[in-house]
Structures are given as C-alpha cells and as structure tokens.
C-alpha cells in the first residue's frame, strides 16, 4: 500500500491519517458520551461487587485491591473495543475509510490511540475511587503507579484494538472478544499486578525490574506484530 513518492512523505501522510481517525473517534465519543459513561458505571459497579464478594474485612480488601483494580480495567476496557469499530460498521463508514489511499496501519494507529485515551480516562476515575473504597495509600507513589498503569494499558489496548477488528465483525462478538483477548493477556496481567504491588507496597528483592521488562517487552512485541498483521486482518 505504499503509493507514496518517498518514505518521509508516506510517514507524514500516515501520521495525519492516524490523527484524523483518532480525532474522529474522540469527537464522536465526546459528543455522545454514552459509551464512556456506561463503561465508567460498569467499572464502578465491578469495584463495589468485588468489595461485597471479598469484604467487609478492610485488611483483606486492601490486600486484594491491586488485583481487583486490574481485573476491573480489563473487564471495563474490553467493552470499549468492540464499540470502537461498531459505530463504523453500522453506518458502512469502515468501507469508506478503507477506500482512502495510504497505509491502512494509520487506521489501526488512530483507533489504538483513541482506545488508549478512552481506557486511560476510565482509569483516571476508577483507580482513585478504588484507592478510597479499599483504603490504599496511592498519592505517595502516584507517578510510578501512573507509569505502570500506562505501560499495562498500552499492551492491553494494542491487543484489544487488534482483536476487535476481527471480533466486532462476527456473530457473538460480545463473548468472542474476551475469549480471544483474555488468555493472551496473562503475562501482561501478571507483570502489571506485580509492578503495581512493588510500587505501592515496596519491593525488597527488586523483582520489579524483571516485571517491568516483561511489561515493556509485551508492549513492544505485540505492537510490532499488530502493525505487521493489521493489513491482513482489515482487508476485504
């Protein structure tokens, strides 16, 4: 798909296209807000249900808080990914998008960034709320925790955006996307939880370095793999 005279102009065209897709998705979301509000509400109810399931012992809740936060992010985020293609499929806009000249990876990058912004915004509400509900002291370690949340979310959103490009176009998409996505996320979940724990509770053994490497490696490997494979997935 490289009908561009030079690589440099191809890059800048791809960059502008990706930005256009990102802008379109964010604008559509901002104007409706239906999706965002629903996903946040779902995340909040998940936090409360976890409290009921594991509480009322405050100490037990605090110990499980990190795991609950990450599970809530995964369960809430997965709702957003299908939606990100759904609106375009309903109106036939995806086909129009595919007919534009240029690199189709720009569509992936744009959608990836839009989903990343979406999930990070959800986290901005969910994580402080979890800190209050479960009595976890987070302010002290906020910058490091934000870094871990960001790295974990990048890997999650990368695979989520990639698999949703397929799952949103078949029957039973609501169940198919988590079925495809969640087994793939096991290393990411382990690394994200261990890094978050090291940040919040301290880590005498210094194991967090290994987990940080897993997190970064996971992000890089699947970002590259998704960019290479997206062309095959989206073409029709």
């Amino acid at each position, binding site marked *: 798909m490289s009908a561009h005279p030079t690589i440099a102009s191809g890059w800048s065209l791809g960059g502008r296209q990706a930005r256009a897709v990102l802008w379109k998705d964010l604008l559509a979301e901002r104007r409706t807000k239906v999706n965002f509000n629903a996903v946040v509400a779902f995340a909040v109810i998940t936090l409360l249900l976890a409290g009921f399931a594991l509480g009322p012992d405050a100490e037990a809740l605090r110990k499980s808080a990190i795991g609950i936060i990450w599970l809530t992010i995964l369960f809430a985020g997965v709702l957003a990914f299908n939606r990100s293609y759904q609106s375009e499929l309903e109106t036939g806009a995806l086909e129009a998008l595919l007919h534009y000249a240029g690199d189709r990876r720009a569509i992936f990058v744009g959608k990836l960034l839009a989903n990343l912004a979406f999930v990070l915004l959800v986290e901005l509400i969910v994580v402080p709320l979890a800190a209050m509900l479960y009595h976890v002291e987070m302010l002290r370690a906020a910058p490091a925790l934000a870094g871990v949340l960001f790295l974990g979310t990048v890997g999650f959103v990368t*695979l989520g955006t*990639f*698999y949703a490009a*397929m*799952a949103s176009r*078949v*029957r*039973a998409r609501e169940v*198919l996307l988590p*079925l*495809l996505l*969640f*087994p*793939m996320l*096991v*290393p990411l979940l*382990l*690394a994200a939880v*261990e890094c978050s724990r090291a940040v919040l509770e301290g880590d005498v*053994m210094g*194991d967090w370095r*290994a*987990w940080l490497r*897993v997190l970064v*490696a*996971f992000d890089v*490997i*699947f970002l590259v*793999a998704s960019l290479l*494979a997206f062309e*095959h*997935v989206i*073409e*029709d």
Partner: protein
Amino acid sequence: MTSSPVMTPASAVAPEARRPSPDVPAPSRGLARFGAVAFGLVVLSQVGAILASPPDAAMGHTQKIMYVHVPTAWSAFLAFFLVFVYSVRYLWGRDERNDRMALGAAEVGTALTALTLAQGSIWGKPTWGVWWTWDPRLTTTAIMFLIYVGYLALRAFTDDHERGARWAAAVGVFGFINVPIVYMSVRWWRTIHQVQSTSSSVDPVYRIGLLVNVITFTLLVVYLMLKRAESARLERALDAALEARMLGRAPSSAGDR
C-alpha cells in the same frame, strides 16, 4: 478408517444431493492405510511399554500414565507449532492448502491439550494430592488451550471463508508468539512467591518405552491432522460442486489438490 467413496459431509445436505458430482474426489486410500498403521503402532507401543516397565519406586503403577501423557503433551505442542508455521505460510502466499493444514493442526492440537490437562489432573490427584497446581507447565497448557479454543471459535463464527482463514492465521501466529512469554512469566511469578515445582529425571528403563511411544503417537497425530485437512478439502470441493449444480453450470475448480 473411511473407505467408502462418499464422505460424511454429503449426508448433511439434501438426499438428492448425496452424490453431488464426480468432481468431488474420494478420500485418499493411502492416507487411510497410514492411519491404520499408525493406530496399530500406538496400541503396540502402549502395551509394550506398560508390560515392560516395573512399578516406579515412588509412584507405583501411576507412573504408567507417563506413556500417554508425555506423547500427548509433546504432540499438542507440535500441533500448535504447525498452526504457527502454516498460518505464516498462509498469510504469505494465500495458498488454501496451508489454511487447511493450520485448521487440521489447530483442531487436533486443541483436543490433545484438553487430553493433556485431563491426564495431568488424573495423575496429580494421587501423586500431589490435588487436581491442580499453578505449575508453569500446567498453567501454560491451560492458557494455550484457551487461546486455541478462541481460535476455533473465531473460525466457527466467521461466515466468510476466506476472511475466516486470514483472521485465524493472525490469531494462530499471535497465540504461538505468546506461549513462551506466558511460560516465562508464570515461572517468575511462582519463583517470587516461593513455590518449588518438582522435576524428576527419567530412568533409562522408562526412557525407551517413552521414546517409542512419543514416535508412534506423533505418527498418529500427523495422520489425524492430514485427515482433518483432507476432510476440509472435500467439504469445500463439495460446496463448490453443489453451488455449481444449483447455478446450473459445470463446476470449475472443484477439489484442487
């Protein structure tokens, strides 16, 4: 195995279309013979290994599940490796033969993984006292099983055949890339939380029996994969022939070999 010229998919359609056209090829007899031989060899090597091995010092006769467990686990992994290889080849050249092989390997591999997990639990209960531990091999096998269940579900839910093949290939490649990452991360996770997993070396008395069974089992699994790929080919040839008949013209490219 099947020696009749009419394959089972034909019975799923209307009776008058049971013998749709001479363009649908018959299943390979050579493959059926290979399957019969492979199956016979598995039976022989199983019986041989079980009779020849003395009861294990620690495990007694429970050890004998090794002769089916290790070959199953090994060939499941081999099958998923082949899914990866054929998926890459399919994405590269879009040759439908590679897609059929990937499908055959994925179905056989998923069934073998389920068997591996069941056998592991059956062995684990008397040996460790529990049906399940969070051992890296066990956990990775369970995650692998779920990844390929997703793969097969995606194939099943995708109506467009060519599209399903492309998507499945992408999922097959991603899933296999992830297997070592899952294994390493689960192992680290366990090491940090101080749980030792037991690993014991295999005595030479048992090793020969195990090796022979791994070889014969692999032959059987190769047969099953080829058989599934063949049945996929016949299904598609049949579809093409039926479509051609309904449109009232001669089939164009039914049953490419």
